[in-house]
């Protein structure tokens, strides 16, 4: 056991536990150990295992969900770096749901600092507050936190396991530990004799784990270098198992319809036609929806569509216009937060030019490629769930609630996610699958949503508005006064998880708004919460997804009002405020050969958003081809401090950008009679092969603290494209999506 001093410093302790035929290595957390997800026998300490070694081999646990961001590979590399095993010789598994996998970095992000100006003290405070994550059971994949969170813990577990294995070999050989080397899963004696870790596992299980200092980055073999992704062969051969691919003996298939007037009641239904349809085994009344269990998903879907349902009304205004009137009303009330209030925005400096603008962006669906689904097996006193999800601990809790079981009686198996983007941090699809399966005990039932059901029952990125006022003088921004209004997805999500909406300033609503790295002497940014009951949630980059557009479109408008090149205008305001951000701008300037001038028929736009600790700059180029506008090229530079897997970071960056461009061009969820008007991809399209730009990415590493990768690529894409369209056409895009205003290639 380590001393209290160590606990305070690091918030975790290295531990080990005996398992059948071997040993588990992992960490204990502060205060008291969380429950061991591997269920060690009586009298054995509980710890969070990241490494299992037994006679059969070495298994590493990646407790985060693999939703395409490469976390499985990079997480394993963190352990392997210290443990001295080869990545192609170990098994990497998703860890089971357990409170111990709390996400310390995510809570750290919630501190009310701007992030980029974080001091060492605040950084430490953020780490300490990470402890709260455990109380909330925050085993969540989101917030671009995976690598920040795992960076130290995984390596520490790997180092301790290696040293303890070395000691076991030293005891066996009767030599000093420092005489022995480790490589490729073996301890190597001075005479070249090799002992496999698997052979030492039983010895190690009886020993106190030995703590060891972490290797200097100069010694790294895996980290900082691109690794072949461990899931790539499976994903190229159709053998990767997603939630929808779970197949169990005797399994039945179900399809579901919930009230399209979201949150409304179900007054009644007539299933007489559905009952008689082929393959149908059972109609399930879900209270606020219906499901059909059948022998085949398609037959289930045909039948569920044949049920006549009398749906109750939605608890929000039924039409889009009225919804946005309600959002605009939020500006009349006091702000929920004013997280930046520098200087005095009430007085316009003498001789300055004032600019005003109002922006509006729509509600957005996540539209993961794999529609929502879940497979459940209810056996009276236990329930097993299989499916892709970003928050298995919450999922377990919510399934237990729905099933009327203790949390311990629910087991959650996390598969690969066919896209997450925040949608799979919710648990509605697990709860529905649970209720459906409970109608047929002892039979595994897979409930798959139709694409239409998925698109029309999302937790949407909230529609948002911004009112911006600014002033420029002598070619510089001297004042920005911004207000953003939208529903609070944080409050809704907190209420869904805990039953209470939470209070206080909502930082997520204003992220990407108040914390941008510009030195402007008079600078106030406020957030207003709109009171609406449309289901909203976390959409890739969350508040940054709308605020990036607002802030960076407005900066562009100010630059033009000041008669300045928009890239130089930004750079000047940023250089002393946050050097890594300025570095990103300089990088895209150089990569794209930015001159501030574009030939006829070509437009270029630039934007930078600092989010999740990572500044990302993008230049987007558009071309006019006989009146149709095509996005031709994109240049991206990011600075996340330390890029553990550079090619994977590049993939996240251009993927994040494509997600943002898709929304900017075509993405819009609208309402009529209380129902979402978009049903399927023809109504809610995205970039495709012919509409996606060529892209070049540069990964910089000057940032003092490690930033995220999965989300920061998204926010600057939307304003960079809007700014490029302004450069091309002279028309300013103040609302999204852009296909309503511009003749974009489809």
């Amino acid at each position, binding site marked *: 056991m380590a001393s209290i001093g160590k606990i305070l410093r690091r918030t975790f302790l290295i531990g080990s536990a005996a398992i059948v035929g071997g040993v588990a290595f992992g960490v204990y957390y502060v205060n008291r150990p969380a429950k061991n997800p591997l269920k060690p026998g009586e009298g054995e300490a509980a710890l969070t295992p990241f490494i299992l070694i037994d006679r059969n081999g070495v298994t590493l646990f990646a407790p985060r969900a693999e939703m395409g961001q490469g976390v499985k590979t990079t997480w394993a590399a963190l352990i392997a770096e210290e443990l001295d095993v080869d990545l192609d010789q170990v098994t990497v598994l998703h860890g089971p749901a357990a409170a111990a996998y709390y996400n310390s970095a995510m809570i750290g992000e919630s501190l009310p600092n701007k992030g980029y100006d974080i001091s060492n003290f605040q950084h430490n405070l953020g780490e300490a507050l990470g402890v709260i994550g455990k109380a909330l059971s925050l085993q969540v994949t989101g917030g671009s936190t995976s690598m920040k969170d795992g960076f130290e813990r995984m390596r520490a577990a790997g180092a301790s396991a290696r040293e303890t294995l070395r000691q076991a070999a030293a005891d066996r050989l009767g030599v000093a530990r420092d005489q022995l080397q480790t490589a490729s899963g073996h301890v190597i004696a001075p005479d070249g004799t090799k002992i496999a870790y698997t052979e030492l596992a039983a010895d190690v299980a009886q020993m106190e784990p030995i703590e060891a200092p972490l290797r200097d980055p100069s010694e790294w073999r895996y980290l900082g270098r691109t690794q072949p992704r461990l899931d*790539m062969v499976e*994903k190229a051969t159709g*053998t990767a198992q997603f939630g929808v691919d779970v197949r169990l003996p005797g399994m039945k298939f179900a399809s579901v319809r919930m009230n399209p007037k979201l949150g409304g009641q179900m007054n009644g239904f007539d299933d007489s036609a559905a009952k008689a349809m082929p393959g149908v085994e059972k109609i399930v009344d879900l209270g606020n929806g219906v499901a059909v269990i059948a022998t085949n*998903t398609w037959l289930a879907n045909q039948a569920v569509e044949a049920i006549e349902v009398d749906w109750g009304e939605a608890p929000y205004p039924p039409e889009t216009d009225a919804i946005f009137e309600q959002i605009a009303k939020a500006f009349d009330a006091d702000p929920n937060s004013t997280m930046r209030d520098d200087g005095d925005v009430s007085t316009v400096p003498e001789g300055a030019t004032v600019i005003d603008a109002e922006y509006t962006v729509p509600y957005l669906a996540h539209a993961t490629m794999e529609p929502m689904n879940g497979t459940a097996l209810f056996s009276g006193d236990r329930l097993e769930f299989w499916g892709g999800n970003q928050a298995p601990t919450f999922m377990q809790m919510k399934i237990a609630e729905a099933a009327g079981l203790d949390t311990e009686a629910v087991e959650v198996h996390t598969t690969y996610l066919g896209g997450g983007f925040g949608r799979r941090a919710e648990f509605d699809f697990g709860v529905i699958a649970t209720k459906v399966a409970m109608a047929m005990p002892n039979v595994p039932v897979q409930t798959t949503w139709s694409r239409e059901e998925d698109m029309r029952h999302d937790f949407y990125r909230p529609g948002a508005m911004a009112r911006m006022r600014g002033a420029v003088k002598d070619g510089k921004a001297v004042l920005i006064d911004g207000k953003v209004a939208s529903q609070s997805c944080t409050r809704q999500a907190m209420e869904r998880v805990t039953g209470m909406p939470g209070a206080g300033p909502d930082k997520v609503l204003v992220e990407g708004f108040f914390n941008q790295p510009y030195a402007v002497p008079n600078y106030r940014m406020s957030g207003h919460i709109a009171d609406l009951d449309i289901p909203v949630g976390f959409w890739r980059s969350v508040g940054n997804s709308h605020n990036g557009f607002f802030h960076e479109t407005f900066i562009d408008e100010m630059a033009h009002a000041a008669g300045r090149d928009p890239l130089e205008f930004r750079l000047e305001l940023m250089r002393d405020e946050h050097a890594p951000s300025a570095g990103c701008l300089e990088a895209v300037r150089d990569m794209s050969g930015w001159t501030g001038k574009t030939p006829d028929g070509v437009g270029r736009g630039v934007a930078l958003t600092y989010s999740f600790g990572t500044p990302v700059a993008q230049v987007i180029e558009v071309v006019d081809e006989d009146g149709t506008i095509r996005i031709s090229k994109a240049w991206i530079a990011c600075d996340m401090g330390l890029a553990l897997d550079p090619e994977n970071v590049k993939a996240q960056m251009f*993927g994040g950008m494509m*997600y943002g461009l898709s929304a900017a061009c075509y993405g819009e969820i609208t309402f009529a009679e209380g129902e979402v008007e978009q049903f399927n991809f023809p109504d809610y399209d*995205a970039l495709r092969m012919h509409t996606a730009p060529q892209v070049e990415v540069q990964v910089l590493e000057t940032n003092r603290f490690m930033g995220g990768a999965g989300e920061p690529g998204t926010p600057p894409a939307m304003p960079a494209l809007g700014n490029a369209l302004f450069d091309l056409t002279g028309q300013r895009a103040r609302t999204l999506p852009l296909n309503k205003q511009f003749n974009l290639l489809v």
Partner: protein
Amino acid sequence: MATTLTINGKPHQVDLPDDVPLLWVLRDEVGLTGTKFGCGVAACGACTVHIDGEAVRSCQIALSDVWGEVTTIEGLGTPDNLATIQQAWVDHQVAQCGYCQSGQIMQAAALLAENPAPSDEEIDEAMQGNLCRCGTYPRIRAAIHDAAAKMKEA
């Protein structure tokens, strides 16, 4: 009524109504889950398979209309014996979430069978029905060019 289909070179007896789409025959009856459900309306390409070598959207083809031999992603190559196109996907680290990639690969394989050296424009034309929400398009394009080059060498 039982129907016999030839899938990846093997005969399969299926007893389902005639109008069940091939996608759901493959996934829920035959147990070949590599072919994915994305939209059900031929708008995303995740369900792409080959019938007699032609790339088709299996969500739109009723069981009774299947006119030839069906090849799915599982029939193209296996983890131990990757097809050239699959190897190119691995070499270029194309997949992110990976859900759409079976369909992308089947579409690309049909393209290369017909056109061994497609231009960027021809790739745009052939691949635009296949949606990828992770935005892996630049690497898909690179992998197709690479596979084309490797197949020429072979």
